[in-house]
């Protein structure tokens, strides 16, 4: 132990004496260990760590499926059948997410996400409120239910953590509600299927008779398995129930059920990107190890005299190796310490991008386990990069080391293998990582070239939700006045509204029938997306009307019901026919036949990388009023410059209405690629780090090689070698290593790129262009790293080189 501390003290002194070496090594290790720690933290939170609920492995999410839909909301009738018929699910509950307007005092109203929950909701999660209680049975009685349980975040933000909040009232959607409880901070149930935003508050679920119908799919369903029941068993039981319902109700013929653990629900969307990023940081860590290994190799060579003295004084080789490994460990622990700081910064960056919303549902933070992991990685890293240079250095020849550093001949044929191996390895790893980033970047460029079907430039969007009990005529009047006011704003060109704008990943769809055609067979009823738009919507969005007309002021309540369909709908259901003048009926708008008056071009509905075009039916707003709409403002100026003026107009019409989801459509388009672009950003960041580390590593190793071979250069010059001969010698040797590194890297990439396939769009995992560009780029960087030391070698004064003897 005493020897260990002695080695530690000596190592610390050496590190202090060579601040340049120490800084380079610590920086390389900090980048490698920090990147690894950050991504492992995220992966651990998303993939490994249990959700913050008691026995969370027993929690499941239940969805309905259709042949063309992997998971969708559940109808209340189906939910009740699932709940009542299941024996393997201990408790099951449903939640209906609603946008609500929270108004209080003189402050601006705020849009919050409310969850209207069924009776057992809190029991499913087995979490008790920290203040007050959850809902009593009485709250579910008809005419009751103006009570709310707050999320911890809303309690903190709007009620200042008031411990006396129980019983206090506040205004929600224009109605007085009473607070009955506050949930704990880590109770963050997601409000949508993509698990992004947590609920701000909960209310008892009250559905109208229409909403309770089997065809109205609007609920998220969660359950808690009985102890000892596996998710597979629950899945089998739910499949049986769904099959029974399909036999019982024709409308359910094609419907199935999907059961996933809640953990899987959270983890699945991020798993591919996280695994790729884990691989990427692993490669960065390996490059950092090779980099520091190279530095240690060079330092070991310069300490041959010291080792020879130690050996002469009786130290065994094992003792020398142990001393060097202690120094490596010291270095790696320093690197690991700095790496944790890098990780903290990177986690902030990651939670801002890849998992901004996710991190509100799952806490992403460094805990003791992660710190332990970082420590283990640091120790392992120290061993990995330290062992070979230590073994190499311990082979010092005592006599030669003491006399002339073994200068009888220059470096032998076997001694350069480690150095050459490090160069080839670093380059191969950098090539692999760069090709991964290159493929993602190429894919991203392709996606940005996708036409969304509308002009997203100079387009501002925001949402407004009128109270659910607002009268239809009030709703029409409100939006009509709002649009008129906004149109009058300087800088506004066109203003329109739609229920769900493209690319925001919310939709409303349902079946339809066509006049004069036989009804669809059971379960064969096709779906169309329901879009409710004001009459200038297509002009505001610059969506071309390809046939017929758009909506006009005559298409209002009381006139002939009309719809506009998109080209996909026209081609699917009226192939070779002109759909103009034909009539269709949707379940949503009742029995009235709607006349098709126009066909518009398709738009991209969900994301730019989803090439599936949906059949869409547009309804005129005045014939199908909705309370919550997204307003689109086409501007002649920078759209964000109009936000305050727009807010003023909304407030001028109704001061209790919050204006929310305010963003430009360019932002919406960019956000639709959000996860992908952030994965790309991180991957590029890691690839850039790898390039810098590999470039400096190769340079360092070759510069070390030149310094080791300066005597050889002197000999060659003495024998008649010209400047060009020496330069060529080192460039050719370096070029051979570059070619070897490229070949190994390209070969590895061909194998590993397959794992990226699910993240690519329009680009093959073996995309020749990307492979070629990366190979050229890396060759140039590596050649520069080779050329500089080669040039330095050619400037060696042979006399100085030989004088060392």
């Amino acid at each position, binding site marked *: 132990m005493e020897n260990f501390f002695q080695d530690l003290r000596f190592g610390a002194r050496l590190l202090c004496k060579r601040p340049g070496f120490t800084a380079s090594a610590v920086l390389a290790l900090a980048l490698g260990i920090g990147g690894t720690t950050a991504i492992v933290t995220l992966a651990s939170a998303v993939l490994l760590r249990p959700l913050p609920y008691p026995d969370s492995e027993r929690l499941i999410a239940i969805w309905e499926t259709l042949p063309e839909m992997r998971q969708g909301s559940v109808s209340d009738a189906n939910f009740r059948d699932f709940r009542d018929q299941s024996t393997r699910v201990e408790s099951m509950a449903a939640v209906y997410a609603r946008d609500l307007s929270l108004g209080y005092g003189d402050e601006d109203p705020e849009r919050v996400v409310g969850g209207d929950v069924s009776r057992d909701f809190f029991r499913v999660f087995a979490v008790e409120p920290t203040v007050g209680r959850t809902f009593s049975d009485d709250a579910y009685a008809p005419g009751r239910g103006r009570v709310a349980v707050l999320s911890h975040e809303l309690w903190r933000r709007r009620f200042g953590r008031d411990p006396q909040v129980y019983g206090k009232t506040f205004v929600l959607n224009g109605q007085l509600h009473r607070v009955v409880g506050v949930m704990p901070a880590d109770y963050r149930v997601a409000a949508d299927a993509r698990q992004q935003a947590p609920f701000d508050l909960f209310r008892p679920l009250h559905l109208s008779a229409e909403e309770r119908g089997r065809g109205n799919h609007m609920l998220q369903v969660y359950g808690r398995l009985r102890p000892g029941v596996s998710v597979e068993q629950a899945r089998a039981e739910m499949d049986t129930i769904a099959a029974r319902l399909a036999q019982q109700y024709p409308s359910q013929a094609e419907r199935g059920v999907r059961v996933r653990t809640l953990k899987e629900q959270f983890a699945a969307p991020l798993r591919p990107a996280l695994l790729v990023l884990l691989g990427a940081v692993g490669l960065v860590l390996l490059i950092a190890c090779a980099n520091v290994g190279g530095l240690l190799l060079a330092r070991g060579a310069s300490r041959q005299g010291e080792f020879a003295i130690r050996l002469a004084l009786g130290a065994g080789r094992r003792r020398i190796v142990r001393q060097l490994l202690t120094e490596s460990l010291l270095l790696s622990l320093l690197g690991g310490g700095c790496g944790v700081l890098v990780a903290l910064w990177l986690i902030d960056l990651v939670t801002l991008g890849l998992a901004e919303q996710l991190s509100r549902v799952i806490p992403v933070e460094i805990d003791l386990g992660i710190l332990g992991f970082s420590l283990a990685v640091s120790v392992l890293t120290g061993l990995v990069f330290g062992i070979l240079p230590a073994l190499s250095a311990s082979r010092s020849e005592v006599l030669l080391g003491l006399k*002339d550093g073994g*200068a*009888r*001949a*220059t*470096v*032998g*044929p076997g*001694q*350069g293998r480690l150095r050459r191996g490090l160069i080839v390895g670093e380059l191969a790893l950098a090539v692999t990582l760069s090709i991964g980033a290159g493929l993602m970047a190429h894919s991203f460029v392709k996606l940005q070239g996708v036409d969304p079907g509308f002009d997203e430039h100079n387009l501002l969007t925001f949402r407004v939700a009128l109270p659910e009990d607002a009268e239809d005529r009030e709703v029409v009047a409100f939006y009509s006045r709002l649009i008129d006011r906004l149109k009058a704003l300087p800088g506004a060109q066109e203003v329109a509204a739609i229920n769900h704008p493209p690319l925001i990943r919310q939709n409303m769809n349902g079946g339809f029938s066509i006049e004069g055609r036989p009804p669809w067979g059971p379960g064969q009823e096709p779906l169309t997306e329901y879009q409710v738009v004001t009459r200038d919507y297509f002009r505001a969005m610059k969506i071309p009307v390809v046939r017929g007309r758009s909506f006009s002021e005559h298409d209002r309540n009381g006139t002939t019901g009309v719809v506009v369909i998109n080209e996909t709908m026209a081609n699917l259901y009226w192939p070779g026919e002109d759909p103009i003048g034909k009539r269709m009926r949707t379940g949503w708008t009742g029995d009235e036949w709607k006349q098709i008056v126009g066909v518009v071009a398709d738009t991209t509905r969900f994301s730019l990388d989803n090439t599936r075009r949906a059949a869409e039916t547009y309804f005129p707003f005045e014939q199908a009023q909705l309370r919550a709409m997204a307003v689109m403002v086409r501007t002649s100026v920078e759209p964000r410059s109009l936000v305050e003026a727009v807010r003023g107009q909304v407030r001028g019409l109704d001061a209790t209405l919050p204006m929310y989801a305010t963003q430009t459509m360019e932002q919406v388009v960019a956000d639709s690629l959000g996860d992908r672009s952030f994965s790309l950003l991180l991957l590029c960041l890691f690839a850039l780090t790898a390039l810098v580390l590999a470039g400096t590593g190769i340079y360092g190793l070759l510069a070390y090689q030149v310094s080791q071979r300066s*005597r*050889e250069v*002197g*000999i*060659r*010059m*003495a*024998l*008649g*070698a*010209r*400047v060009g*001969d020496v330069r060529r010698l080192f460039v050719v040797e370096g070029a051979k290593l570059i070619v070897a590194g490229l070949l190994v890297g390209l070969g590895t990439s061909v194998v590993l790129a397959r794992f990226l396939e699910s993240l690519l769009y329009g680009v093959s995992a073996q995309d020749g262009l990307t492979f070629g560009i990366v190979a050229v780029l890396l060759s140039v960087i590596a050649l520069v790293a080779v050329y500089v030391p080669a040039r330095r070698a050619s400037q060696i004064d*042979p*006399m100085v080189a*030989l*004088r060392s*003897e």
Partner: protein
Amino acid sequence: MNTERIDQDAGHPEHVPGYVGSGEVLMRLDGVSKVFCTDELETHALSNVRLDVHAGEFVSIAGPSGSGKTTLLSILGLLDSLSAGTYALAGQSVSSIEASELPRIRNRQIGFIFQSFNLIGDLSVYDNVALPLTYRGLPAAERRQRVEAALERVGMSHRRKHFPNQLSGGQQQRVAVARAVVGDPPVLLADEPTGNLDSRNGDSVMELLSELHAGGATICMVTHNPDYTRYATRTVTMLDGQVVAEQAQTPRLAQ
């Protein structure tokens, strides 16, 4: 022993009694000085050295450590520049030669033998010896022929595929001698060629140099060992950067 103190201002020492050579001056140093400068210190490694080396001579350069022997040899070998004076090699002033021409001259005119052998560890015996010919751009067939001959001459042809670290010190120095002579240079410069060898191997290398001299080579050799100066036709003694004595002698012949 016939020693004469040289008056450095008296001109070139062609008059040294007992001088053995062909008469043609191959290397002439005239008033050569070499000063090494650091920030705070000027070191006069050579000071006003005058020396002629004739074709066919075997000159031994002796003197204590720091007397300037190796610096003198480096200047003779075009590895170092002069601070003052002139140096003519085969009648041509070195200062008039372009720097880019120096490697070619070193390659064709001069063969080096170093105390530490200075073989290249990554290259086999054969490749080490072939190196000067490679730089000369000789065709492979001619290279092979010359290398075989040189290795044969030093008795190392059976080790042609070995690497330097597989050879003894004496064998390494034999390879170094083969490399020095393979290009058939008129001048051989040897800097303590026996310094790292035991007496048996040292004798053997000296026998080899003596044979080369007998074959017509001009040799300048730095040595500390008085026994080996007897192989030379002339011994130049240096002290504090100056040639302080010269002694012509009848060389001990190779056995």
